[in-house]
């Protein structure tokens, strides 16, 4: 059979399996098996077993349950409420006022939590009721929450960067550091939009609270101190080359435990539940990585990715045109697939193509993570939307519509890092170690 026909058959099989609701990991495994069994001369059994084993028995991957556990512990503490109280007195005078809390608190939590759904849930459970109670328009509150939650993936630590780093064999430490400036850029863009919408919707905004005396404001900031220390310890140690991401993650768990004990916000059942929550999420992600590893090896044996790379290289597209096409593809995929699946499908099929046209894999990782952030807020499938649906009771399409400006800002960020790749590569180039 022609390679094109084989590729079409496998894509169709994948679509049928995914579309009918087969668990993603098993769908990837099934397509990988079919590729090996029908279109190569290798007996699939040994390849399947060794990919399953090899994909998850990795030390870098051990950072995953640690970072998720850290987030699960922090979710159960009072940190989000403290953050709200500490930040809000400083934001009363800026256009958009307390709506900025969604961006700032998400940015800060993103720096200690690895996933965007967890960031959205942690910030949302405090900020959503508080902001609505104070009379902020629901549309703006929901939109900025959904959008800002995506910062969880871009600002390190990031579950998606660990998955990409492990699957694409790129240093997780460097990916983390590479995400810092783009993360700040996205925060600035979001805050810019919040200011603008605050001015545009001035009549819907509640009257400002009277300003607090400086002393009280500074005392409020003290409450943010623990989470800031944790943030500096985790990211700082990676940047300085003192700790690997896995080590920083374990220290992070320790720090989160200390904060939880200090503030007496963690009971035994709570601790156990946080651990098991982390175990389940890690298992779900690890299983998808394992299934994707089978698909990857099948792809490599059939030679489809290499042929695709050669074909696209032959088209003579510019790098920009190719990236635009890829972003469009990610947007379509992102409407139906979750971020992890998009990343593993990309690393199995598209990575050789990116290499062939000379795209830096570190930079591509950040580009991909921004694409995945978009996927978190595009309906009908988007994790942030589900989280906010659970918190607010609004349906996901309403939430997605209010998050639309933030989606646009993310696209602007993707365009900016494409035109100025230094935003991504400048910091990691200055790292010690990693």
């Amino acid at each position, binding site marked *: 059979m022609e390679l094109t026909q084989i590729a079409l058959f496998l894509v169709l099989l994948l679509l049928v399996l995914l579309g009918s609701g087969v*668990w993603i990991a098993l769908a990837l495994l099934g397509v990988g098996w079919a590729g090996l069994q029908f279109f190569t001369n290798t007996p699939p059994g040994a390849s399947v077993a060794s990919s399953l084993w090899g994909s998850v028995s990795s030390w870098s991957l051990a950072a995953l349950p*640690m970072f998720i556990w850290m987030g699960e512990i922090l979710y159960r503490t009072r940190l989000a409420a403290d953050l709200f109280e500490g930040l809000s007195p400083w934001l009363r005078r800026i256009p958009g006022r307390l709506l900025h809390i969604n961006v700032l608190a998400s940015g800060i939590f993103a720096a200690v939590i690895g996933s965007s759904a967890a960031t959205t849930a942690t910030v949302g459970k405090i900020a959503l009721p508080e902001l609505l109670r104070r009379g902020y328009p629901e549309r703006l509150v929901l939109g900025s929450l959904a959008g800002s939650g995506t910062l969880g993936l871009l600002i390190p630590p990031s579950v998606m960067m660990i998955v990409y780093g492990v699957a694409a064999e790129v240093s997780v430490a460097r990916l983390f550091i590479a995400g810092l400036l783009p993360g700040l850029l996205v925060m600035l863009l979001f805050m810019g939009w919040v200011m603008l919408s605050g001015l545009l919707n001035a009549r819907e905004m509640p009257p400002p609270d009277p300003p607090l005396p400086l002393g009280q404001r500074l005392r409020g900031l003290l409450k943010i101190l623990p989470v800031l220390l944790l943030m500096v310890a985790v990211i700082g140690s990676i940047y300085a080359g003192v700790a690997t991401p896995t080590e920083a993650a374990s220290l992070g768990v320790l720090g989160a435990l200390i904060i939880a004990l200090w503030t007496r916000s963690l009971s035994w059942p709570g601790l156990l539940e946080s651990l098991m929550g982390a175990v389940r999420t*890690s298992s779900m992600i690890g299983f998808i990585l394992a299934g994707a590893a089978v698909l990857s090896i099948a792809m490599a044996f059939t030679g489809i990715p290499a042929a695709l790379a050669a074909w696209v290289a032959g088209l003579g597209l510019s790098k920009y045109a190719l990236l635009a096409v890829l972003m469009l593809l990610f947007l379509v995929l992102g409407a139906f697939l979750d971020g992890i699946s998009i990343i593993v499908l990309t690393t199995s099929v598209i990575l050789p193509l990116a290499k062939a046209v000379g795209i830096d894999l570190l930079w591509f990782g950040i580009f991909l993570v921004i694409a995945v952030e978009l996927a978190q807020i595009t309906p009908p499938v988007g994790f942030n939307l589900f989280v906010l649906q659970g918190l607010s009771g609004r349906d996901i399409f309403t939430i997605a519509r209010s998050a639309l400006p933030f989606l646009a800002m993310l696209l602007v960020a993707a365009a900016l890092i494409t035109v100025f790749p230094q935003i991504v590569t400048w910091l990691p180039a200055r790292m010690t170690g990693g």
Partner: protein
Amino acid sequence: MRKFLDGLYRLSGFLAGLLVVFIFLIILAQIVGRQFGVAIPSANELSGFAMAGAVFLALAPTLRAGAHIRVGVLIRRLQGKARRGLELGVGGFSLLASSYATLQLWRLVLDSYSFGDLAPGLLPLPIWIPQSLLAVGISIFTVALADTLVVLWRGEMPSYLSEGGGQE
């Protein structure tokens, strides 16, 4: 039977939890040890193995909790007979795929055992030991899928498959 199976899934999840705690402790030990010039032998390899074991041992309880993700856009719109039919088809395929993976992982364990393969690193650990954690984990997962299928066949909808479960 129901009690036994639920206990089995819980035990499997509990072991996975212990492995995650093990990763946490061994990495902390490594960091502390380094300050005093003491190296924990094969700490990196051991935490990688524990990670693999945790992922696979937690497969079954994660399935029961409805935390494995799938694309539910179509299946959630179906109701009654159509829903049940598709769930049975999905369950059947999943059982087949998982059984196949189970078989291949046990083969890997047997091969590593008979060739006497050792883990890389300082500690000469026979690699079939961590590999068998995966084989055990996916075996229990296969049992859980069969369990689901039986429940579906009887005409009931397993709670973790319906609305809350199978988050996408």
